């Protein structure tokens, strides 16, 4: 792999990372697990002048019980989400889904923060955090701010993050109901989702879709139908309403819409089965 030339800076603390970002602005890119950024750099689709490596900021790697919510550090690796007892108990949708990200190598390197900030609608965890009503905490020169997941994902690879900000934490409210469901449809175990579905709750669940548009999306028509007491099958039939899924090598838009309907039905049935 031979990317274009770049300067490499390793941050020893969050403050140092922030000051490096402040110094280099648009020219800098944060490097966390590197499993989204480096493939782009390898193909020279991303050519940052400065790479600020935050991968060793251990103090941003944690899963903590904060009463009503679980706080997860932005540098927490997928593997740590997958194996966290606390998450398995209090937010099983997140740990379960983390176990389906890529392959073991990817899960040992990739981070929750990187997954979210990258803004790839094909990624699994953004939809999970959206379904669970998570809040993202960003720190910048102007201090900290909290951004609800619903406002965070703006368009393809675009999020609410500013170039001089660092995502530090993700707060997941503890779910009110026990039900949850997760469906990831892919060709091979290591592939991104062709379509994915994250369901949080059971009777009136939140349903988020993976790879059905430029950002992770809520299947609002299906949610509404369930909230109104409609059958799972009838609600699932509305799963693709209002979406504009991409057509690419792995699937046409029509096929994606069809998959969304099947997968939402299965995921909601699962959620109700668990409740």
């Amino acid at each position: 792999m031979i990317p274009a030339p770049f300067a490499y800076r390793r941050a020893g603390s969050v403050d140092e990372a922030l000051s490096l970002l402040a110094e280099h602005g648009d020219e800098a890119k944060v490097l966390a697990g590197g499993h989204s950024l480096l493939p782009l750099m390898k193909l020279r689709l991303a050519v940052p002048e400065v790479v600020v490596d935050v991968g060793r900021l251990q103090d941003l790697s944690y899963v903590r019980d904060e009463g009503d919510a679980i706080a997860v550090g932005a540098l927490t690796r997928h593997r740590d989400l997958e194996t966290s007892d606390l998450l398995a108990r209090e937010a099983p949708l997140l740990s379960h889904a983390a176990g389906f990200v890529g392959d073991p190598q990817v899960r040992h390197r990739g981070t929750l923060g990187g997954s979210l900030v990258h803004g790839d609608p094909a990624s699994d965890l953004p939809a999970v955090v959206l379904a669970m009503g998570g809040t993202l905490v960003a720190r910048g020169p102007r201090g900290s701010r909290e951004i609800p997941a619903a406002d965070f994902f703006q368009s393809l690879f675009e999020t609410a993050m500013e170039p001089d900000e660092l995502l530090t934490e993700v707060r997941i409210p503890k779910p009110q109901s026990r039900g949850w469901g997760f469906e990831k449809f892919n060709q091979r175990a290591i592939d991104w989702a062709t379509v994915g579905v994250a369901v949080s709750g059971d009777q009136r669940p939140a349903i988020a879709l993976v790879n059905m548009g430029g950002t992770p999306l809520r299947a609002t028509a299906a949610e509404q139908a369930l909230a109104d007491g409609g059958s799972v099958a009838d609600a699932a039939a509305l799963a693709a309403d209002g979406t504009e899924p991409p057509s690419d090598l792995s699937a046409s838009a029509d096929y994606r819409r069809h998959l969304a309907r099947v997968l939402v039905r299965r995921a909601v049935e699962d959620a109700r089965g668990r409740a």
Partner: protein
Amino acid sequence: MSILGTRVVRAEDPRLLTVGGTYVDDLREPALVGAAHATFVRSPVAHARISSIDVQDAREAPGVVAVFTGRDLDISPSPPAPMVTAAMARPALATDVVRYVGEAVAVVITDERYQGEDAAELVMVDYDPLPAVVSGEDAVRGETLLFPEAGTNVAWTGGAEQLDEHLFDDCEVVVTQVIDNQRLAPAPLEVRSAACAWSDDQGQVTLWLSTQGAQAARDELQRQLGLEEGQLRVVAPDVGGGFGAKIAADPETAALCAASRRLGRPLRWVESRSENMIAMTHGRAQHQTVTIGGRRDGTVLAYRIEVLQDSGAYPRESSWLLPILTMNMASGVYAIPKVETAARSIVTNTTPLSAYRGAGRPEATAAIERAMDLFASEIGMDPAEVRRRNFVAPDAFPFQTPSGITYDSGEYAKALDTVLEAAGYPDLQEEQRRRRERGDPLQLGFGLSAYVEITAPDNAVGETGRVEVGADGSVTVYTGSSAHGQGHATAFAMLASDELGIPMDRIKVLHGDTAKIPKGAGTYGSRSLQLGGSAVHEASVEVVKRARHLAAELLEADEGDIVLDRDAGRWHVKGAPATAVSWGELAQQAEGDGGLAADSDFSEERPTFPFGVHLAVVEVDVETGAVRLVRFVSVDDAGRVVNPVLTEGQRHGGIAQGAAQALLEHMVYDADGNPQTGNLADYAFITAAELPSFELLPMETATPLNPLGVKGIGEAGTIGSTPAVQNAVVNAITHLGVRHVDMPATAQRVWAAINEAKER
């Protein structure tokens, strides 16, 4: 007791699994000290006239030693192959026209590898776009010609010139199907790589090359570079896979040697994975039309296959070799009275085609095995039964096919029965019936494939072997065959050990160095053991004969009374084991007289024909189209087995590769000739997670054609498994009205096929 046939663990593995292999890029030869690095500038367009190449900026970039275009380097073009018009010859670097995305137009030489990647971006090539020819139909129509001087895009035609319109006259049932045997990328773990160093006076050059055949590469490169015989030494260090795509020397290698000569500096070249996917040759890419006809009682009377072989932008041997192999093997394991074959090879603005594991035979098997299933389903008969009724009978061997070739030996029905029994065929049928009845979203499908293939198709070319006993009693085996993962070091040492009675750890196997082994063919076409192994065996037998003579002299006895105690590895006079001589002593005795050694050049009278039956079981989610391969049962009869560890390894890899073609892999181009699957993120190779454990059943039917009784096993797994998996997918959804699903049977395709059937 003979060690042949026993499970000897691979001699190669301790090194490969601990310190690792030494591949071209790992070499630290003194001759390569100070080597510069080559990076190729590749065409981003499929078809264009080159109006200018400006290398000025690149020359001035950091670390750049030189930039060469095709006009700067004196390299003879690669002739396409005998039988193909010379107007389609390929220059090492494109000078006037580029004909596919990835074709090399210039080479940048830099002190460091990474500098090359930056400098290559600065080479400014002006491309005047020409219309791209991508589909077979466009190529045949010939509105745009890749080589206007040739006057056509058809590089080669073979088989029947005129189709027989009465071929199916006697048939009660005739079925036709158009089949796409899709283009695949070989994607070996080690990408293409080479390193090159000239002697100071430039009289001699050494090329370290990741290749399947050092001697063939030497001959081809000597011609292209205008060298005398003996000037070029080619060395193949460890080679990380080839699958057919490393048989020949690619144009980049010639350019590397020429540039190194110009600069008087050693050079290294390792391509990137993205380059490998579009610039290493591809495989398969056959468009087939098959027609099968017969009686309602299951007898097949006639079969026709018409092949359109995509050769990519520049025809090579494969342009005629692949379709010829397909035509030769057209009728497979069946005794079909009338068989007609016809083939055309065309050029398109895509990556050139070459051999890929099976090379023409998987395409033949895929066609006939799909056809048998289509015929079975048309007459409403069990596919196993239809196959059984048409097999070549065991007493019919040697059997001459309508295509004119002679199968050596086979037991096709026995292979089928063994597989059906082990698989529990009736239970599978019952389970399928139950799931259909209850409308289970997970439907069960099972697919059969009965195959016969041709190994060592170039039997007459033969292979060389030399066995040398050293003064210390150790043995060196030289083979013209070339290991790149197969396990030659294990198998060939076993063969020598078995004859000589010298333990394997005292036997070294050398290959892939033209200085030490001037004559050899290499490894391809599943030929190594039957030709190279037989050569080693024969040389070993000869060494034993010479040793017996020497022992008789030393022990002052009659040759007839001399005994080789193979357990002890010593020679003595019958009845007097106390006075024995060792191999080392005999070798010392022979020292003045050329040493204790023997050469063999072994060729077979005819090729051999391994066969087998594969059964795949899949689950198809009829709501999403997703396919899951849940069981795989196979018999692969490749004659005598020298070491089951090795044959099972070959079967494993082969089956996985075939399943990958059936379900996942596809090298896709858009209408403008842009590759859409140019890296491993988009090109869906298969992983262990997609595969069940394979149930490999033993069966051995010896061939009379070589002293070991062995046939080839390297490609059989791929040949058998591809249609078995494809047939299983179709079988799972036939009750929904689906007749055929092209490969790869992706979820979307399966879903679409179910929908189409519903709408009909």
